[in-house]
């Protein structure tokens, strides 16, 4: 992997509009029973503008930014050898349906460890007013050999 990637900031991904039915679909797919994610009236009664997305929903928005990284011509990342090592979401507020989020990816770290390369990429997501909503941080491990993927 190209060590010069560290510190690289990518252009913002196209804005992602969080749809109500997408929130419901994601909630159901992750075993949620939360009325706040499934029932608009319950979400409004709890003071939210619309359905509240589950805690890991930002992965859907982050995906476009990670695709930018993997497609970077000089990155030298072989997608077939990529294993997800770590993931973190840090939220300033919950994501709600109707949010339009713009994600900007920064490569925060590139390391080589025992033949494997590790890249940590941070996607900063902001609403239409430019306020921080969530940062999604992924550490991807690029395996050096043909061991089984995780």
């Amino acid at each position: 992997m190209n060590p010069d990637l560290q510190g690289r900031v990518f252009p913002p991904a196209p804005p992602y509009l969080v749809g109500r039915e997408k929130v419901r679909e994601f909630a159901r797919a992750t075993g949620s029973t939360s009325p706040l994610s499934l029932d608009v009236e319950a979400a409004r009664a709890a003071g939210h503008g619309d359905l509240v997305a589950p805690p890991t929903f930002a992965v859907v928005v982050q995906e476009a930014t990670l695709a930018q990284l993997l497609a970077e011509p000089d990155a030298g990342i072989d997608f077939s050898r990529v294993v997800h090592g770590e993931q973190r979401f840090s939220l300033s507020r919950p994501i709600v349906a109707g949010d339009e989020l713009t994600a900007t990816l920064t490569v925060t770290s590139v390391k080589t460890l025992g033949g494997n390369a590790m890249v940590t990429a941070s996607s900063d997501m902001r609403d239409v007013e430019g306020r921080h909503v969530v940062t999604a941080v992924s550490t991807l491990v690029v395996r050096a050999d043909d061991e089984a993927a995780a």
Partner: protein
Amino acid sequence: MSALEVGQVVAEKTYPLTRDSLVRYAGASGDFNPIHYRDDVAAEVGLPGVLAHGMLTMGTAVQPVVEWLEGAGDDAGVLGWVSDYQVRFTRPVVVDPTAGAEIVVVAKVGKLDDEAGTARIDLTVSSGGQTVLGKAQVVVTLA
């Protein structure tokens, strides 16, 4: 907040996963990597079988905490919300085509920070008796 104590188990739940769950998550998340639904592709890349998406395990494992937060408050509202959540993917979850797999989650209070108004909930997440997520920590901002 004063009702919480470090070490207290706040939620415990078991989630069955089937191949249907993986296909559903693929569609919901947009992650269509075929190792999560095709046996031939999984075998080709040397995997022991079709694996659950790591992000499906992560997304499911936090749900008992969400349920606890929403159910533990009185009618007036919830106990808090998840403001930070991190995991390490330490072991893949193999999902058998007929038997499926199970994800077992135990959520315990790891740390209380009165000043910040937060509680750290530590998750133990296992499948088939083996831990599958490491350093699985949920920070809850208390209402």
